[in-house]
């Protein structure tokens, strides 16, 4: 899932200066799970904005909607009427949802209420960790299911650098060395032989480096 966190309130309040009718749009998918932009967070943000508005004698008219997703057109259609009545939209979806809102409602200013961080997992409630870069050509079959692009701070492909110590990354003792994790996993699986192969330079043209990406499947297009 996509992990995000809410932008600082002081930033958000600044952008709303001069506007009156604000729509806060939460998203019912990833940002709900990572507690950054779900219905709860949207309602809380609305309350904070109302309080700030009263304090500044600039009463805001705030509407809150939380469609199931902001990255599918059908769910954006459901909130079109509410968007239309607003002057500005504060989207609490990830960067994809924010942009899709801005694209779909092109006459409205859509502002980002969150910072999209990474593709990750829920370690436990309140703790999320990064697991994938979306690099476009998976290498997990070589590394026991642990991603060197993401889990290694240098994205090295042929083992760790000389900087890791006691299984921790040189840049932060709180970060596991990705290659230590890979080694442990392959050892456990009895597949340390995989480490003998020199992994060739990666083809990054499938990654961000090749430019914005698109997938087209003719077999499912209606």
């Amino acid at each position, binding site marked *: 899932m996509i992990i995000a966190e809410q932008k600082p309130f002081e930033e958000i309040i600044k952008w709303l200066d001069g506007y009156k009718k604000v729509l806060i749009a939460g998203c019912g998918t990833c940002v709900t799970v990572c507690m950054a932009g779900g219905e709860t967070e949207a309602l809380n943000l609305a309350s904070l904005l109302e309080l700030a508005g009263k304090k500044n004698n600039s009463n805001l008219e705030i509407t809150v909607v939380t469609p199931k997703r902001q990255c599918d057109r059908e769910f954006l259609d459901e909130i079109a009427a509410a968007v239309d009545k607003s002057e500005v939209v504060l989207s609490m979806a990830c960067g994809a949802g924010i942009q899709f809102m801005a694209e779909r409602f092109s006459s409205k200013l859509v502002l980002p209420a969150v910072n999209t961080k990474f593709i990750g997992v829920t370690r436990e409630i309140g703790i999320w960790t990064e697991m994938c870069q979306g690099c476009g050509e998976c290498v997990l079959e070589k590394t026991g299911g642990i991603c060197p692009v993401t889990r290694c701070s240098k994205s090295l492909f042929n083992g760790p650098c000389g900087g890791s110590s006691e299984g921790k990354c040189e840049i932060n003792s709180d970060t596991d060395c990705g290659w230590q994790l890979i080694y442990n996993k392959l050892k456990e699986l009895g597949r340390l032989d995989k480490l003998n192969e020199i992994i060739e330079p990666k083809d*990054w*043209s499938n990654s961000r480096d090749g*430019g914005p990406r698109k997938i087209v499947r003719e077999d499912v297009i209606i």
Partner: protein
Amino acid sequence: MVEKSKLQKILEAGKFSVTAEIGPPASADADFVAKKARNLKGFIDAANVTDNQTAIVRMSSIAASCLALQEGVEPVVQMTCRDRNRLAIQSDLLGAYALGLRNLLCLSGDHQSFGNHPQSKNVYDIDSIQMIQALKKMKDEKVLIAGNSTKKPAEFFLGATANPFADPEELQFIRLQKKINAGAQFIQTQAIYDMERFKKWMERVREAELHKKTYILAGVLVNKSLKSLEMTKKVAGMSVPDLFVERMEAASSKEAEGFKIALELISEIKKIDGVSGIHIMAVGWESIVPAIVEKAGFLPRPLL
């Protein structure tokens, strides 16, 4: 005291500058570069030494620039943001300046998908405008990007490129102004075939008084064949009127016609108010530059 480059002195003296290019080889052949430099010596004020042009691996611009300098040709180092992060850019440029290089052209660099390593990563840690700004700040305040001071900063004569034919026109013009505001002291344009559009662009430049803040050096491409001209026409951002293709088609000697067209373009460019120099690009035909310069009436070059 800043050691000004010859190119800077010529432009500041109000003289019309003549620059050209040296394309480094995809080999470690020092003599290849030296020969090209010797061919240009005495005919031009400076030569751009391209930086892995079209994302094809070639000898480093800095190394080839030093070789050119040894042959008495003043180089303009080119540096792309595509291949280096802010550490490497600063490090390479401090080294380049220490080696006696004095002119720098800051470029984004063609995307690697155009070249011979399309699978590679790009960097684009900072963009060319940010690079210019960082280098100007290095000169003015003796600080590197991280804010730490340096006793001897690299004090390059800073250049950037501009394409009078790229769109959206308004945004490209804003970008040009940003480059100048960031500290670009000279601007080399994309090759000009469409004189009408270039004249209109120069009108805008004069209106905004950009020609008083920076030196505009007009790009001239010398094509030696119909094929190369047609390829030029297809390049994104180029504007080549059909007239030139027709002339090239009809010509019995393509080289003579290419030469003639280049001279005509130069002759017209020289008359345009606000243009401070000519930048000759003779891709794959660098040996023709001396004859172009001589025939265009640019000799002898000023000694400063």
